[in-house]
């Protein structure tokens, strides 16, 4: 009887320490966006029973890598439907890996969209363009979902800005996302410059663009790149900046 009581007491003591400690660590994981995967029956259907169990058993990133390699092979074979399916699984399993979102978006918006436009099996140009735009949308969707899981990292904002710039010709959104990327820690040095470049193409925002470009120009030699100088000169003419306030024609060496 004494022994049973001791066991119960021991278990209660163990639980009193263990459960709050586990709860506190789980809480920290949630705050840091760890384990952001929803293991639900839909995911099990997508990745199969074995992959699902492996993912749950601490080998989530390994399963994601295997699927990533499969997606790479599917890309080499230009099986775009399979690439999309596999990348959806990869990003579901490893939503904190920037690389997977970025690669998935690149395959959709750049590679698959170009292939769709050159699809020789589809004689109608309108349908080929429609398919191309659908792949742009899929690429954008990957980046937007990736940003939801990684709001604190600049890479996906930058990728989204490039997509708006190169595929949608939407300079306003491109400027917005380059600026967002530039505001985050770890952003590449060109993000701020690119935000100003894109803004210079936006109708009605020339003054704002001029101010930003001029601030960059004033920051020093390293920012005075040919594109920046060219855009600044164009804006000086457009905004009729007085000659004495304009930048010199040639940069003194």
């Amino acid at each position: 009887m004494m022994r049973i009581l001791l066991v119960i007491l021991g278990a209660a003591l163990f639980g009193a320490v263990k459960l709050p400690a586990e709860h506190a660590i789980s809480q920290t994981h949630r705050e840091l966006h760890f384990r952001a995967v929803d293991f639900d029956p839909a995911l099990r259907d997508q990745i199969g029973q074995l992959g699902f169990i492996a993912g749950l058993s601490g080998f989530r990133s390994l399963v994601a890598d295997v699927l990533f390699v499969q997606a790479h092979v599917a890309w080499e074979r230009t099986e775009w439907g399979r690439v999309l399916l596999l990348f959806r699984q990869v990003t579901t399993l490893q939503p904190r890996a920037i690389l997977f979102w970025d690669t998935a978006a690149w395959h959709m918006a750049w590679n698959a969209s170009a292939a769709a436009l050159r699809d020789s099996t589809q004689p109608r140009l309108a349908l080929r363009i429609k398919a191309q735009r659908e792949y742009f949308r899929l690429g954008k969707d990957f980046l937007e979902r990736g940003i939801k899981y990684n709001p604190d990292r600049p890479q996906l904002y930058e990728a989204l800005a490039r997509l708006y710039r190169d595929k949608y010709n939407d300079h306003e959104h491109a400027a917005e996302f380059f600026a967002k990327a530039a505001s985050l820690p770890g952003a590449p040095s060109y993000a701020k410059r690119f935000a100003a470049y894109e803004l210079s193409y936006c109708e009605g925002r020339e003054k704002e663009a001029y101010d930003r470009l001029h601030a960059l120009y004033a920051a020093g030699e390293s920012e005075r790149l040919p594109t920046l100088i060219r855009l600044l000169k164009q804006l000086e003419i457009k905004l009729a900046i007085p000659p004495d306030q304009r930048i010199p024609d040639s940069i003194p060496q």
Partner: protein
Amino acid sequence: MTTSIHRAFSIGRIAAITGNTFTELTRLKIFYVVLLFALLLIGNSIFMAQFTFQQEFQVLKDIALGSMSILTSVLAVVATARLIPQDIEDRTIYTILAKPVARVEYLLGKLAGVLLLLAISVIIMSALFFVVLKVREQTVIHETLRQMRASPPEQMAEALGAVRASAFQANLFSGIAIIYVKASVLAALTLFVSTFATTTIFTTVVMVFVYFIGHLQSTARAYWLQTNGGGGITKFFLAFVALFFPDLQLFNLLDDIVAGTAIPPTLFAKTATLGFFYTGFYLLLAWSVFHRKEL
């Protein structure tokens, strides 16, 4: 004539059992696991060379740390599961316990032997991993330098910084330390199971189930409560599982470390402390069963 006083608890006796256990396990050629790991790493790095450097490093780190986690977990369970049954079968246990060796010393020595083996395995595997990572990083740096020969120094520095940041992160050490802590928990739990199990196979099978339950319980609990609501019996059952099985998902920081997420030192410290707490508790449980066991 000198008389030696017998101490109830002796570090020297534990160290002797630890050394003996370690030698015994080494003779089982358990370090072949490390060879397997090396082959996996080298094969992987050759195959992955066709990817971009970010993809290559990400997959290399995933494969290396993932396989390190699997191999140390398997090693912890398999090496520990055979210790007590093997000693009983070889009758070594009678020779040891017939001497003035306390049963707690015997258990501590056995567990320490396994933990030493795990530590050495983890150190060798980590060293191999860092060598392969460094070699690949240097290869990529040389390629980048060659390709960007004409670029301005700032751009060159930025590109090289990106290569280095993709390859090596200080967080990898935290990840490896947590792999070891998780393996220690599994070893202690296996030792506990082996104190009442009669065969090595039984202990191993039980541990496989414990491993899966430990990983699945938090997800299953959340899903169950979300879909079925929280009835009294359900809550009691879930509390029972949560009380007796370790939540092994808490030790899975690797997925996030490889993805580039920084692990705060406090989280690392809390996780490691929880791991040592589990290890101590399961050792205590093992002793509570073993000290009354009829041999």
